[in-house]
C-alpha cells in the first residue's frame, strides 16, 4: 500500500466514498477453537459494517484446539488492512493472512446441487455435470444430486446452467483456501 504525505482518508469523509479499487480478498484466520470465537469474528464484521461474502470454519488441529476461518470480504485496501488489524486484536486470534495479497491462492468450494426433471432436461443436466466433472451422489427416476468441487466461479457457472435444468436447491460449503508453494501461514 502506498502512503502519500498529507493524503488522508476516512469513514468521516464528507464526499461519497470512492468505489475505485474495491475488490474481494480472501483472509485466513487461525484461532483458538473456543466457544464464541466465531461469534466474535462475525460480530466484528457486522458491528463495524464490513461485509462477509463467504465464511468457513473448522478445526484443523484437534490437539492444539486450533481452527482455521476462511473469510472472503470486499473493500478498498485501507479497509482491508483495518479489517485484518481488527481481527488481529481479538484475543483468541493467532494469525491473520491475506491470501489475496500473498498471491494467486488456491481456492476451492464444494457444492451439492439437486435437479429434477424427465426426458430431455434430465439428459442435458447429466451431460453438463460430466462436462464440469460433477459426480452423481444421489439419483431417483426424476432427480439427481450432483457434487461439484472447484473454484467458486466454476461452481457459479455450473449452478447458473442448472437453473435451466430443473434446479431444486443447492448447498455450498463456502471457501477453503491455501497459499501455493511449500510454506504454511
Amino acid at each position, binding site marked *: 500500500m502506498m*502512503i*502519500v*504525505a*498529507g*493524503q*488522508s*482518508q*476516512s*469513514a*468521516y*469523509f*464528507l*464526499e461519497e466514498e470512492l468505489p475505485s479499487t474495491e475488490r474481494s480478498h480472501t483472509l485466513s484466520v487461525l484461532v*483458538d477453537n473456543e*466457544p*464464541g470465537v466465531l*461469534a*466474535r469474528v462475525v*460480530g466484528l464484521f457486522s*458491528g463495524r459494517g464490513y461485509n462477509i461474502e463467504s465464511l468457513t470454519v473448522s478445526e484443523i488441529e484437534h490437539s492444539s484446539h486450533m481452527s482455521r476461518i476462511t473469510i472472503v470480504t470486499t473493500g478498498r485496501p*485501507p479497509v482491508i*488492512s*483495518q479489517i485484518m*488489524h*481488527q481481527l*488481529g*486484536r*481479538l*484475543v*483468541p486470534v*493467532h494469525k491473520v493472512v491475506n491470501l489475496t495479497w500473498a498471491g494467486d491462492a488456491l481456492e476451492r468450494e464444494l457444492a451439492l446441487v439437486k435437479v429434477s426433471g424427465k426426458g430431455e432436461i434430465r439428459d442435458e443436466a447429466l451431460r453438463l455435470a460430466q462436462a464440469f466433472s460433477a459426480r452423481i451422489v444421489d439419483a431417483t427416476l426424476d432427480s439427481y444430486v450432483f457434487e461439484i468441487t472447484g473454484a467458486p466461479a466454476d461452481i457459479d457457472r455450473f449452478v447458473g446452467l442448472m437453473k435451466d435444468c430443473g434446479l431444486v436447491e443447492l448447498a455450498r460449503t463456502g471457501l477453503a483456501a491455501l497459499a501455493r508453494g511449500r510454506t504454511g501461514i
Partner: protein
Amino acid sequence: MTRQMTGAEMVIQALIDQGVDTIFGYPGGAVLPIFDELFQQEDVRHILVRHEQGAGHAAEGYARSTGKVGVALATSGPGATNMVTALTDALLDSIPMVCITGQVPTTLIGTDAFQEADTVGITRPCTKHNWLVRRIEDLPAILHEAFRIATTGRPGPVLVDIPKNIQFQTGTYENCKDKALTQYHPAVKAPDAAIREAVELMAAAKKPILYTGGGVINSGPKAVALLRDFVKLTGFPITSTLMGLGAYPASGRNWLGMLGMHGTYEANLAMHDCDVMVCVGARFDDRITGRIDAFSPNSKKIHIDIDPSSINKNVVVDLPIVGDVGHVLEDLIAAWNARKPVQDKAAHAAWWKQIDGWRAKKCLTYRPSAEAIMPQYAIERLHALTAGRDTYITTEVGQHQMWAAQYYHFDEPNRFMTSGGLGTMGYGLPAAIGTQLAHPGALVIDIAGDASIQMNIQEMSTAVQHNAPVKAFILNNQYMGMVRQWQQLLHGNRLSHSYVDSQPDFVRLAEAYGAVGIRCSKPADLDDAIEEMIRIDRPVLFDCHVVSLANCFPMIPSGKAHNEMLLGADVSDEEIETAIGTAGKVLV
C-alpha cells in the same frame, strides 16, 4: 502451591493474589456464594453501590486514578445488563477493568431460567474479551488471565461470567498470576528502523507539534516523565486530547491547551499548519480531526500506538510506530541523543512566533458578569481554590465537561477522570466515589451538569455509606446545555426537550441522602461557598446556579476544518445558527 477450594473462594483468592484491595458491586441470587465469601474475609473491601452501572463507573474511576485494574461484581440477568454501559465506556476509553458476573447454573443455561441473560453474548462487543466459565477446572486460569488481558497492550474491560453451580463446586486453585492462558502478547517495543526514521523526520521539522492522548496515561508514570523530557529535549509545542490532559503540565511552557472540537485556537491552528505531527498514544478521533480531508493537510504524520488497528483507521499516517509509549519514547530519546540533530533554530523561532500570535487571540476569553455566575468563571475559581491541594476531578458529560477541560488546568496525569469516547452522562459521581476510595485523603470533585447528575444520583447514598466525601459541583444552567447548543447550531434554536424541568431542590436532596447541600448564585459569594465545600469532610452537592444560555467555545462545528473555528467572545447568534452546512448536519 495448589489448594482445594470452592469456585466462590477462588474468586476472592484470585483477587487477593492480584493485589486487589477494593471492589465495587451489588448482590443477587447468582452471586450469593461470592458475597458469602466476601463476608468471611477482610483482605478485599467491597463497596456496595446503588446501581450496577455505578459499580462499573466507580471501578473505572478507581482504575484511571491509580493506574490499577478496577473490579466490579454483579449478579446475573439485570445485574449484568446494568453493567453494559460502564463496560462500553471502559472499552472506548481503554480503561482496565475486570467485571465478574454470576450466571444461572450450567444445567439451566438456555432454558430462559429466572434472571438468565446471555451475558457473554451481550457483552462480547463491549469487552476486550469475556469468558463463560463452564468447568471449575478452568476457573483459576481464567480469573488470572482476565487481569492479564485487561492490563496488557491496549487496556480494556473484560468480563468473567460464573454460573452459580461452579461457584459452589470444589476444585484445585493455583495462583497462575504470571502465566498466560492465551497467546495474547502485543509487542511493546518498536523496530529500530522506525525509531531512526522518526528522529530524522523530527530533526528536520520546521513546524513540529506533539499531539498526545490517553495512551500516554495508559502507559504509566514512566511514559509521562519521558514525554516531559522529550518536550524539553526537542522544544516542540505540545497539545493533548481530552483523555491525555495532565500528562504534560498545563502550566508548562510548551503547552498549547487541548485540541479538537472544543480545543484552543492555538492548538488547532498549530495542528492545521504543522509540517511534522507526532501523535503519541491518541487515536485521531473525529472530535480531533474535524473534516478529515482538511485535517493538517501539509504534514508528515508519525503515529505511536500500541494497537495496530488505531493506525491508519481514520487518518493515513506516514510513519506508524507500533509499540508502548514508554518504550518508544525511551528509544526515541536515546536515538535523538545519539544523533544530536542540529535543529533549524530560525524556523522554530518563527513557528513559535506564529503560535504566540494565535495565543494572543485569547480564545478562552468570555464575557464576564457581575450579577450572574458565568460557568467558565466557576471553573476558574474552583481551580484557583483547589489547585494547591491533592485534587482529583471527574466530570459528567456536556458543556460543563468541556469547561472543566478548558478552565481547570491539569498539571499531573491520572487527575482527570472523564467519559471521553462514549460520553456517558452519569459517569462522574460514581467515578468520583471510586477515585475517593482509592485516595482517601484527597479532594475529589465531580464537575457535573444539572441533567447528568440525575443519571446516577442514587450513588450519593453510596458516598454517604462509605464515608467518601466527594463533592458534586453542579454547573446548574437549567438546560441540557450541550444539547441546547447543538439545537441552536443545527435546528433553528427550537429547544426540543432540552430544558431540565421540575428540577429537584439539590440542597434538600443532598440532605435527604445524609449529605450536605450548598447553593450559590452570586459571583461575589462563590469563593466563600467553594471554600466551605472544601472544608466539609462529607459528601456535598453544590448547586451552582450559572447563566442559562452560555455556549461552549471555541468550537469547530462538525464537518469543518481546524481553521474554521467559532470563537466565543465575538460570535453572533446568526453566525452560530449558520455555522454548520447541510453536509455537516448528519454528523454527530
